[in-house]
């Protein structure tokens, strides 16, 4: 049974989703785990913008065609549909943004793009993290984005518009809830005590007043909110604390992508930023060792945000680098889950970004052709020439890869080429000899389903095709502290 997708018209939409699933693909496994098979802890990984090709490309670079990323070694596979709805309606919006998608799995409801923790009509929805906290679980929210950005925000705040991140409320960037101004996301996070551990970026969304409030509520604040970013060393220093609430924001904005951290910005401040895997390790340590977690478990969301952000930029090198680091963080969780034997690990995405794809070595895309062939729309047949004009590669716009050997020509359009783990020694990124040829369709999100991987207790119910709203009910069902005995 699918989770209903809207308070108004819920049954109609839920029925529609069920019918689509039953016709188009094998029905998702939906039964709740058997008693004793529910997880005490849940770690939910979100690769922002991570479609199947992002996984494929990272695999080829990291471990080669026959290898597997850590996420791919999780035993349960599925796919997730991601569509949103238009404001104040149940009308599907086929391409979601991060806000709508994150609200879908955190609350079980479809909503409009830009909505954070509210439904399509602006009604505030209880979230998984809020419910976990209420059930006595420890809670954590980790991201390489500003923690006020859409994906983390939808677990522990509510906003009519995702742009209302703080520290200042403005009508244009925030809109209203029920006609009333509301607290910006950062200021909600500082005051609602929903997450015990908050690690990521966005220090300048917060203020000294927020710090005073959080310290008053028992948080250890690394750095100074709104004034001085936290450092990886500070994070290391608190890792042994078992009952602490911690907020550490390591950049004024988003964290630095790993490729840039290594090459473009080797400044001390950037080098002080922890990686996603380091933050994940720290968060698990802080959450799992607490008394509340030993009694009721913990719920942790971890977002690899820069996969999406660098896909928007059509930067394949950084996209791959961020996907590999996201997988490193998953490896950390897998090791914990293997030892703990009571933890559910789920890996999925909010949406695909930029139509990332692998083309044949030596081939080219329509967009590189002298006269890009137009799409047909029911007008062609087997007797009709598919291409009426030259589809040859345009030498004016595509003289080589956009990286490496072709990078000196700024007019080059595509592709970006990368050596894979299977390529002979000496083959370099950006060379025609590299096996992995990557292109982007656009600079924006697409409506493709996204992959899901899961393992650990209760993971079987995530198998198969499902909607992003289904994840909410399934996580509730699979989590001991959140389900009815």
């Amino acid at each position, binding site marked *: 049974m699918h989770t209903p997708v809207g308070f108004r018209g819920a049954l109609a939409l839920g029925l529609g989703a069920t019918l689509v699933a039953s016709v188009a693909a094998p029905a998702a496994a939906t039964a709740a785990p058997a008693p004793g098979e529910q997880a005490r802890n849940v770690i939910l990984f979100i690769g922002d913008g991570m479609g199947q090709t992002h996984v494929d490309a990272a695999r080829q670079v990291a471990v080669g065609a026959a290898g597997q990323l850590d996420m791919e070694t999780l035993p349960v596979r599925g796919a997730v549909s991601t569509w949103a709805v238009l404001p104040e309606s149940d009308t599907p919006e086929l391409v979601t943004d991060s806000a709508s998608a994150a609200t879908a799995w955190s609350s079980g409801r479809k909503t409009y793009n830009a909505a954070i923790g509210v439904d399509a009509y602006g009604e505030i929805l209880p979230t998984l993290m809020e419910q976990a906290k209420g059930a006595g679980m420890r809670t954590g929210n980790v991201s390489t984005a500003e923690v006020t950005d859409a994906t983390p925000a939808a677990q522990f705040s509510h906003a009519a518009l995702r742009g209302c991140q703080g520290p200042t409320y403005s009508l244009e960037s925030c809109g209203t809830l029920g006609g*009333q101004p509301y607290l910006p996301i950062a200021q909600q996070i500082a005051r609602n005590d929903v997450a015990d551990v908050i690690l990521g970026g966005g220090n300048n969304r917060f203020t000294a007043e927020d710090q005073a409030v959080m310290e008053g509520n028992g948080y250890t604040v690394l750095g100074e909110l709104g004034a001085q970013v936290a450092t990886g060393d500070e994070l290391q220093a608190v890792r042994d604390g078992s009952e602490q609430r911690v907020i550490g924001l390591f950049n004024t904005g988003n964290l630095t992508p790993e490729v840039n951290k290594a090459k473009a910005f080797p400044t001390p401040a950037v080098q002080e930023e922890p990686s996603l895997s380091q933050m994940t390790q720290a968060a698990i340590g802080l959450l799992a060792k607490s008394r509340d977690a030993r009694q009721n478990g913990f719920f942790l969301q971890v977002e690899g945000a820069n996969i999406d952000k660098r896909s928007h930029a059509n930067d394949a090198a950084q996209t791959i680098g961020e996907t590999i680091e996201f997988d490193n963080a998953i490896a950390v969780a897998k090791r914990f889950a293997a030892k703990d034997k009571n933890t559910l690990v789920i890996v999925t995405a909010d949406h695909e970004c930029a139509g990332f794809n692998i083309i044949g070595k030596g081939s080219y895309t329509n967009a590189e052709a002298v006269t890009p062939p137009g799409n047909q729309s029911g007008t062609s047949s087997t007797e009709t020439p598919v291409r009426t004009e030259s589809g040859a590669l345009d030498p004016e716009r595509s003289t080589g890869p956009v990286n490496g050997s072709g990078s000196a020509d700024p007019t080059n359009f595509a592709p970006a080429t990368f050596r894979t783990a299977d390529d002979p020694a000496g083959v370099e990124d950006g060379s025609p000899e590299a096996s992995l040829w990557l292109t982007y369709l656009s600079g924006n999100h697409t409506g493709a389903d996204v992959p899901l991987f899961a393992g650990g207790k209760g993971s079987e119910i995530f198998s198969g095709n499902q909607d992003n709203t289904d994840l909410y009910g399934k996580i509730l069902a699979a989590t001991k502290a959140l389900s009815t005995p």
Partner: protein
Amino acid sequence: MRTPATARTPVRRTSAPLAVAGLAGALVVALAGCSTPDAATVDVAGQAREVALSSPAPAPAAAEALDAPAPAGTVVVLDGPFTDRIELRELRLEEGGHVVAAADVTKDVSELLELELEVAWYDAAGALVTSVRHVVDPEDAEEHHSAAGVIGLPVDVAPPVPVPADASATVAVPVLVNE
């Protein structure tokens, strides 16, 4: 992806929003065949709602006076939470008091979602003459994307009332959000 225009309109609120939201949450859980969260869960969700609906602090207004009078024709960018993410090049006062610049947003900028500038004009004695909140339409940034970010986004802010010929100005960046 841009926010749909309709999402910017105030959304309707029921007469009992908290109760409805709670009922909706319970309905979702019940219909999903899953468990109903315990009472503590509802309380925390309610607390989060209560916090969310707290009144925000008013946006900082332009200072009534400068600490010291500024030379005529100068424009100063005030330090703020986002001044490490944006550079206003060729910032100047032009005829009629227009504050003109080319904005470079060079950090965290796969897509520009929100940008607001608070521009204030001061007389020769440093007293506030007028101010205005300038809201940039993110669509206007699309053609200025480059490998380095959003580069050269034109800024031209007119004073809402006439300002003296010897006026100076300040610019603050209270809102900046990138995808």
